[in-house]
């Protein structure tokens, strides 16, 4: 086990990969994301199979409002950028910037969640479009809801990491955690890009 930070009292250049535990964590997380890709792939396949089955409920074209989802997309894409800034700060060992950019990321994530909750609320209350309406509605809420739950999990997770950074600082133990949380955040961002294209854009054009 190489605890490199104790050799000369300084963090190595890539503190997330300085220890075997850290490297294992990053590798294990890549593998986990591979499994997550299959998970969302199956959800997308389900959605594509059932998206036309509106069962006399609202269709995708009637339902969706692109301005809201476009705003949500923009917010989430920007949050991915801010998490890149956070990782750059991590590599420069600039813990203040790191915390700042992580906080911005969390705030943007909350903004995205707010828009999504508003969207779901509108559908359920004003459009009578809920889980039970049709096969399309079930597939929509499951796919988009799974993504939303992932975002919510990420928000809580990154918030906890920010708290840890305040308590413990940046070490070879905390750095891999921050790094994999950024990987996770990018992943759910990519999934959203597909949701925006496959669910919303495709839904609007037919």
């Amino acid at each position, binding site marked *: 086990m190489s605890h490199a930070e104790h050799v000369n009292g300084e963090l190595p250049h890539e503190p997330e990969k300085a220890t075997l535990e850290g490297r294992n964590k990053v590798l294990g997380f890549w593998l986990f994301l591979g499994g997550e890709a299959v998970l969302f792939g199956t959800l997308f396949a389900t959605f594509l199979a059932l998206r036309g089955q509106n*069962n006399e409920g609202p269709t995708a074209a009637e339902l969706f409002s692109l301005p809201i989802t476009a705003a949500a997309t923009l917010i989430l894409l920007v949050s991915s950028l801010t998490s890149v800034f956070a990782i750059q700060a991590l590599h420069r060992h600039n813990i203040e910037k790191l915390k700042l950019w992580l906080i911005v990321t969390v705030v943007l994530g909350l903004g995205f969640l707010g828009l999504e909750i508003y969207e779901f609320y509108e559908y359920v209350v004003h459009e009578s479009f809920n889980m039970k309406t049709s096969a399309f*509605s079930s597939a929509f809420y499951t796919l988009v809801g799974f993504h939303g739950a992932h975002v919510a999990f990420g928000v809580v997770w990154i918030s906890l990491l920010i708290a840890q950074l305040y308590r413990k600082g940046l070490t070879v133990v905390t750095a891999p955690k921050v790094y994999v949380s950024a990987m996770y955040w990018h992943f759910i961002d990519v999934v959203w890009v597909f949701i925006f294209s496959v669910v919303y854009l495709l839904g609007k054009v037919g």
Partner: protein
Amino acid sequence: MAHAHASSHSVKRYTGIMDWLTTVDHKKIGILYLIAGGFFFGIGGIEAILIRLQLIKPMNDLVSAQVFNELITMHGTTMIFLGVMPVIFALMNAVIPLQIGARDVAFPFLNSLGFWTFLFGGLLLNLSWIMGGAPDAGWTSYTPLSTNDYSSTHGVDFYTIGLQIAGLGTLIGGINFLATIITMRAPGMSFMRMPMFTWTAFITSAMILFAFPAITVGLVLLSFDRLLGANFFDVAAGGSPVLWQHIFWIFGHPEVYILILPAFGIISEVIPTFSRKRLFGYSSMVFATILIAFLGFMVWAHHMFTTGLGPVANALFSIATMLIAVPTGIKIFNWLFTMWGGQIRFTSANLFAIGFVPTFVMGGVTGVMLASAPADFQFHDTYFVVAHFHYVIVGGLVFGLFAGLHYWWPKMFGRMLNETLGKWTFWLFAIGFHMTFFVQHFLGLLGMQRRIVSYLPNQNFDELNFISTIGAILMGIGVLLFLANIVVTTRKPVGVAADPWEDGRTLEWSIPSPPPEYNFKQIPLVRGIDAFWKEKMAGNKEMTPSEPVGPIHMPSPSILPFVMSLGLFIAGLGFMFSTEDFSNSFMSLIFNKYIVLIVGLLITFAAMIARSLYDDHGYHIEVEELEGEGKA
């Protein structure tokens, strides 16, 4: 290498039951998997015997049709997910880190979490027997049979939630072994020097990673249909029952290769050891394993030939399925050529391994027959299919597991299993197996449907079913003998040699039996395939170390995996009964308002947060302690 900071932490070391609940040692987790898997294997076996007793004569009424449906469903589900998978994980845990020269797995904590989620998922599933009825829609849980309309008890909810939790454990285990094999190999152990069992465990773990998320989604969809009123599989609201079949088999077909590949690996270890020859065609074995895994993802629709996908799809899936016979055939010939000219010793382990070869070939041949789509229209849903998959799963996998257990038992427990009892186990099990399932081919061809609760007399079914049931009882006796063997062996003192078979080829035989908690005092240097054999041939008694003796860092035990899994168990029960009408107002409050679900999830999340906030510094085993143990 400064490490003084960590050794100053005093780590709580538990004893007794707490030791087992908190252990993160892969060897102990392997034993836990073996005990739990063996327990569920026993339950699944009792269910099998009951099924066969019901079918021993025409128009039998030992069990009702409803109970029979529950029995066949739980037999299949239990055996696959809770019986053989955990025993595979038991051997992987016990052997893989030793074979690659590692002190532990990549994620010891997750390893423990994987075990406990599997156990709690399995317990939840089996609680269905005493909580209103077991699942009754077959282990494939085809819709609409498994929807609320046709399965109104909570049985299928136990299936979806229980398997969901258990499947999480399997996925965690898969990721853990992938990372372990990628990063934890000893110096010199390149991928093409890894023992075959490690290779197959690696490929199986990759398949788990890419197959299990599909069933996760399938189970989510089915439980949403049943509990939240979603319409995925409800035709009236636009859903599609065929969607379930696709999702289930996109998982389900890789799953059968997930099961059989480790058995291939075990056979590839046992046969060379007891032939005193290196494995014939090592590289082609590796290549065949990868090819089988790859093709295994491409053939799921051969379970759906009669669904009506059309001739083009059927033809493509038919050809892809037949292709799998090629790499599998390569393996069969490699095992035969390994034995050819070897000094074969017929130990119990090797009897199972040699018995595996022809038995598995028979299962493979009927597999190719079933792969032919037009013929499958005749075979579909008959006992021919039942005979086929029991030939590959019992005749293949279970033979392989018995071979592996007899082979590695001294390494896991430090005691040799009794060879006489072991040989009796083999002969009773093997003869019983062929009696049970060989005749089922003909039952199927004569037209006996699978999953049928009884049959009319004088259709030529009577004698064959009788023979089948007697065979099942013989298999049961064989398993009981194995249990007796374990009891007899456990009463013997610990203390077999490091290399009890004397012809051990791989690294696990170079360290004491059972291994110390840190496995290797010094990580060995690997100089070729069959690293330990190579050293022996060079006249060395031990492996050449790759490092000086130094303090060894160990992870701390933790109760958190147990707590997380318990939380999921509670949440699962809460979700399952959220739609139930309770007469008791307190029960209806805590279940219908999702309080139980939320409490369960909070327990799990609280444990996750605790894990994240409190760093695990582990502890060190110092040089003096290592040297002391070395002398003793």
